[in-house]
């Protein structure tokens, strides 16, 4: 029983196909979902699971202690670092108002931010383009645009 056995290779190939299916569904969701944060959901989560499946296929195929250790390490690093980028992108998207706030079901973060004194700056005159309608968050202590508010 080694990695080059046809049975093992077949199981590894099936795991690979499943993993690539999840990568494909990540890309499809990236294209079809309505705003940044939902696209982030679709793009970074199934991809982690797909990678875990592909890594287990590699572990089966290579069938040695060194490669198994490396596979476990890669999976661990992926699980540790994917939430960081997902969180940072979604936090920035929320603070800049780049999500579908109008279609949101409930928004308790907005309540808490307003309680804490955050406000929305006066509407900037940037061309909105086809951005979904959300609103930026700023602290009340910060003037919205220094050059506009002074004088």
């Amino acid at each position, binding site marked *: 029983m080694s990695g080059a056995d046809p049975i093992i290779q077949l199981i590894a190939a099936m795991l690979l196909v499943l993993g690539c*299916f*999840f990568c494909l*569904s*990540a890309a*499809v*969701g990236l294209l*079809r*979902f*309505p705003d940044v*944060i*939902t696209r*982030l*959901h*679709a793009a970074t*989560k*199934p991809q*982690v*699971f*797909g990678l*875990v499946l592909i890594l287990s296929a590699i572990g089966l195929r290579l069938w*040695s*202690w*060194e*490669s198994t*250790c*490396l596979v*476990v*390490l890669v999976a661990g690093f992926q*699980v*540790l670092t*994917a*939430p960081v980028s*997902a*969180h940072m992108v*979604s*936090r920035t998207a*929320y603070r800049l108002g780049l999500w*579908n706030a109008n*279609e*949101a*079901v*409930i*928004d*308790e*973060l*907005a*309540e*808490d931010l307003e309680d804490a004194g955050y406000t929305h700056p006066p509407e900037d005159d940037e061309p909105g383009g086809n951005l979904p309608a959300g609103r930026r968050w700023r602290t009340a202590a910060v003037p919205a645009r220094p050059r506009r508010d002074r004088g």
Partner: protein
Amino acid sequence: MMSEEKRTPGEVMHRHRTRRRMAWRHQGVNVAFLTLVWVMLNGNAWPLTVVTGLVLALLVMWVFPLPAIQWQGRPRPLGLLMLVGRLLFDLAVASFRLSVTAFSRNPRIRSGMVRIPLGSQGDLYQVGTASILTIVPGSVVVDARRKTRTLYLHVLDMEPEEAQDVVEEARRAEMRILRAFASNAEIRDAAQAHDEEGVR
């Protein structure tokens, strides 16, 4: 800081010694973990590898010192196993559901932001809960407050009535993290805090 609290010299020494003990314990855990990562990278456990790993770990910790976290718990093997297993299971199920949504004819997605007050006190538990809540498809931690120990979760598909269910799920995830890393007292306190929240 609190001027009305008169500390006896004995108390000061005890606090100082405890903090130093905790700091050394954390350094030990860090060095052991980094050596383990090095050994796994090399793929063998020869003495040379272990010694090189120790040297590199100490060097890294000397060059990049990090503030010690206040961790009163201990690693529990059974809890860790349950955590990892349940994490993989959740990952699989939620990824399937997400791909069904992605491929469906008309993805009607109604998302929401839910506030989740955590029951535990400790940076490690808050970050751990945020990590596993983010990695599982369907929720992303958008913001977190350290003082009030709350997380704000963006949930992909929910109805307004399901907000309490989301909070329950997140609290169960927090209990899993606690059972993997916390001491008995912390688990008890967190369970108590959850019950109080539920009753209110």
